[in-house]
């Protein structure tokens, strides 16, 4: 048929059908589902369907001691667990009036940024896989493993570290650790041009990601978007800079932004953040040897620790967005109430539903990965 003779058929509404996207689906991140209503391969309507990973965290935490909860919180966000421990510790420190030693604060910054690097590498891998580029996934996961090795040496755990406790960190850095961090960072930096060639400037990716899942700055603010996703719409908002915690006010770094607000911009922001994180960790490595002192302040017997009554709100910037803990104590040995404000519960529900609608079926997975949502944190 000649193209000028071709007339697109307007499908009657009965052509709409519903598709379960997930929970056991290779294109979805973790155990999460979307119900999409399709017309051809156009998404007409999308509903997030969570709850597959619900464990009742906030209730569980009310039943455990303050110190026991440290082992529980990293499970809320699996790919990037450090910010969870950190925000909880910061909130409890605020309640208990604990003064964290300077050395511990620098170690914490290093750990946060290493965790951000590891999480971003993992996300790049997943995102590339949704556009059919599996090599990036293999590389990203393998390079992330080098950072997990660093964590293992420092904390004893590859993924869950349980390293930050209220009052400081559990143990000091081992001998020669900073050298090994430096060499791993050097290695990652030498790999970045390869990643650029393979993924970030690859036309397969650029063409599919440009204009996919676009949101404006106004929409992003209305939907409660935070972190790299918000910065990809051009807004320079970063808790590390605007409401500094730990020693971020002494550290020199840029806030990565992009203007476009689409999947491509979001990925580029993460790519730039990777370099900024490397820069931050290098500053820590420079400063840490000259800072002496203890690595944690004395805390009462943790098994019978009655944290003074009050409420505290601590927020930090994780690789996914803004993580915050609201902790209420009535002076008992267990929290009265802990509320977790996770970034993904916005990104994977209302934002995802809105961005997917009107798009095409093959972009659903890509949009989800470009938002870098983390299902266990949505369901908690």
């Amino acid at each position, binding site marked *: 048929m000649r193209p000028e003779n071709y007339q697109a058929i307007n499908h009657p509404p009965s052509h709409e059908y519903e598709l379960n996207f997930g929970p056991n689906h290779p294109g979805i991140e973790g155990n999460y589902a979307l119900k999409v209503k399709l017309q051809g391969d156009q998404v007409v309507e999308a509903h997030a369907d969570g*709850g597959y990973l619900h*464990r009742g965290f906030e209730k569980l935490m009310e039943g455990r001691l303050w110190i026991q909860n440290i082992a529980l919180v990293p499970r809320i966000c699996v790919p990037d667990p450090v910010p969870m421990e950190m925000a909880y510790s910061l909130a409890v420190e605020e309640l208990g009036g604990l003064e964290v030693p300077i050395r511990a604060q620098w170690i914490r910054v290093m750990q946060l940024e290493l965790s951000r690097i590891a999480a971003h590498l993992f996300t790049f891998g997943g995102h590339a896989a949704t556009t059919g580029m599996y090599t990036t996934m293999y590389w990203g996961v393998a390079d992330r*493993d080098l950072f997990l090795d660093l964590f293992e040496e420092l904390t004893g755990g590859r993924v869950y570290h349980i390293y930050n406790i209220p009052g400081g960190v559990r143990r000091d850095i081992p001998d020669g650790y900073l050298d090994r961090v430096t060499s791993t960072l050097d290695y990652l930096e030498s790999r970045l041009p390869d990643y650029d060639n393979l993924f970030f400037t690859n036309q397969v990716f650029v063409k599919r990601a440009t204009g996919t899942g676009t949101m404006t700055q106004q929409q992003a603010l209305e939907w409660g978007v935070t972190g790299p996703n918000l910065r990809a719409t051009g807004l320079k908002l970063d808790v590390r800079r605007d409401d500094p915690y730990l020693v971020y006010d002494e550290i020199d770094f840029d806030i990565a932004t992009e203007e476009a607000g689409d999947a491509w911009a979001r990925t580029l922001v993460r790519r730039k953040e990777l370099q900024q994180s490397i820069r931050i960790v290098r500053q820590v490595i420079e400063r840490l040897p000259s800072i002496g002192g203890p690595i944690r302040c004395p805390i009462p017997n943790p098994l019978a620790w009655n944290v003074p009554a009050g409420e505290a709100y601590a927020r930090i910037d994780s690789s996914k967005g803004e993580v915050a803990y609201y902790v209420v104590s009535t002076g008992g040995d267990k929290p009265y109430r802990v509320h977790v404000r996770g970034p993904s519960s916005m990104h994977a529900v209302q934002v995802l539903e809105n961005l997917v609608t009107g798009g095409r079926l093959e972009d659903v997975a890509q949009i989800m990965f470009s938002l870098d949502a983390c299902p266990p944190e949505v369901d908690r």
Partner: protein
Amino acid sequence: MIKDIPIIAEQAQQPRRTNPLAHVFDELMNFARSRSLFMLHYCTGCGAIELPPAMTSRFDMERLGIQPMVTPRQADILLVTGYVSIKTLKRIILTYEQMGSPKHVIGICSCTVNGGMYWQSYATAKKLDEYLPVDLYIAGCMPRPEAVISGLQKLIDNIKHGKSDNWKDYYQRYDHYLGNQQHLFGNNWQTPTDVIGEAREYGLFGPQTLGQHTELLESVQKPLQPLEMKL
């Protein structure tokens, strides 16, 4: 709730095999099966995060002949990676019943063994082997990729020696598993698969396949309707 550990019930009456080479054939089949395993990893919980490292370049489980597979109907192994919430468990059971035999279930993480960290949670199912016949547990919170791979090697050995046939148990003692499932999900629980029919088909119909729970299932079961297709 019935609490006993699944033990394979005695073999149901099977047609006698007269071919003298039958066991040679069986061994050959077991060997072939053990070398080509397709794994469906249902990312139920945090343990799933150690699977990408185990599958990709660094630990590389493909050298053992194990590959991820995306659909249940073509998979041999069902990996349950972590705590199972009740909502997920329904999907896992449905996934398991869709897989073709012989099939194997591996429970990764302490949470599938006894509830792990979430032993007091209201939302999770504590012991996976009450609902599905588990072949192998890999304990740890979370198990390292090396542990996952050594567990899979153990499974390969078991399959090669014909010791890993817990899937038969699901048919032979379906009543037991169904009872536990009904206890958790309520009396209206049903899946669109026909386990009892399959048990007859495979010659695995045992004395405990039917019981009070399957009677309950039959009384509430809605007959399967063919899906209405319209274009």
